[in-house]
């Protein structure tokens, strides 16, 4: 069935990419617009408000968020190393890197959980102010993306042995595509972090 569809693994001779890679880039383009709308909202509400809290007033935990930034960037390195390891045929090392990526992602979520629960504990909710509405919506949606990444990477890791034996190149492509998505999640955070925590 699916074996009759060309370019699922090998790149198209003219465009130079296989189908999944083009697909994931198109998906990321749509994600840019999704987060673009949220950033646009942020700018519009901030420009239109007569008082928008600076980072000293919001009570957000900057050191914790800095740690989270570092964790997420680290996970971007591990995932690109996983892809690289597969490229040079070191499957065992690649599995370790994928596992490290999942670990980083989970660390990020745990830290996020502490941040959120602290906020709820001191009585800060999305309805508290427009700043917190933006904060919870944007980080929440970003968190869902991290969660999605964790699920996909876990699935890839769990089925990796079989895939690597049967379709090594396809497996490498999957890691690459999931990696592209993961870098994008990282990239969103790179903009979220200063926007919400440092300005």
């Amino acid at each position, binding site marked *: 069935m699916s074996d009759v569809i060309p370019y699922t693994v090998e790149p198209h001779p003219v465009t*130079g990419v296989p189908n999944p890679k083009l697909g994931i880039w198109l998906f990321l383009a749509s994600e840019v617009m999704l987060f673009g709308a949220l950033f646009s909202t942020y700018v*519009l*509400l901030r420009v239109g408000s007569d008082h928008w809290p600076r980072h000293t007033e919001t009570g957000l935990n900057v050191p914790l968020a800095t740690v989270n930034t570092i964790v997420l960037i680290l996970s971007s*390195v591990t995932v690109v190393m996983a892809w690289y390891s597969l490229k040079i045929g070191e499957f065992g090392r690649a599995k370790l890197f994928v596992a490290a990526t999942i670990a980083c992602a989970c660390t990020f979520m745990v830290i996020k959980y502490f941040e959120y629960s602290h906020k709820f504990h001191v009585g800060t909710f999305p309805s508290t102010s427009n700043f917190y509405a933006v904060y919870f919506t944007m980080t929440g949606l970003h968190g869902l993306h991290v969660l999605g990444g964790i699920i996909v990477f876990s699935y890839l890791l769990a089925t990796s042995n079989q895939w690597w034996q049967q379709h090594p190149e396809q497996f490498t492509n999957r890691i690459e595509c999931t990696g592209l998505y993961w870098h994008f999640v990282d990239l969103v955070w790179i903009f979220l972090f*200063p926007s919400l925590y440092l300005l």
Partner: protein
Amino acid sequence: MHAHARTAHGHEDLKKHVRIYISVFVALMFLTVLTVVVSYFHPPIAWAVAIALLIACTKGSLVALYFMHLISEVKVIYWTLGLCVVLFGVLMLLPTATEGNQSGVVHHNDRTVVGAVHAAHGDLGEHSETH
């Protein structure tokens, strides 16, 4: 480099990758710390936004260019992303531009003043031009 790697260049060429990834990682760490440190000096808001955005854009470009291999990608992907970037700009600029253009209409936290504003929205848009 990425497109080449698939064909023939083999491990030698790929080894270069690791060095690049590590250097990019170090640069990202440095920029992260830098942007946090800058924020502790409480620059005026305009400067703070400019610096934070500049650093974030640099970091974002590093991730996109080296981790996502955009530095050596194929044309079809550049076209897609180019279109996406243009429309992203439209989405970021135009709504906020309308917000700036209708100064005086928005978001006072004073209940009594704005009660009438939205009822007379159409008039106020013109009116505010003269202020």
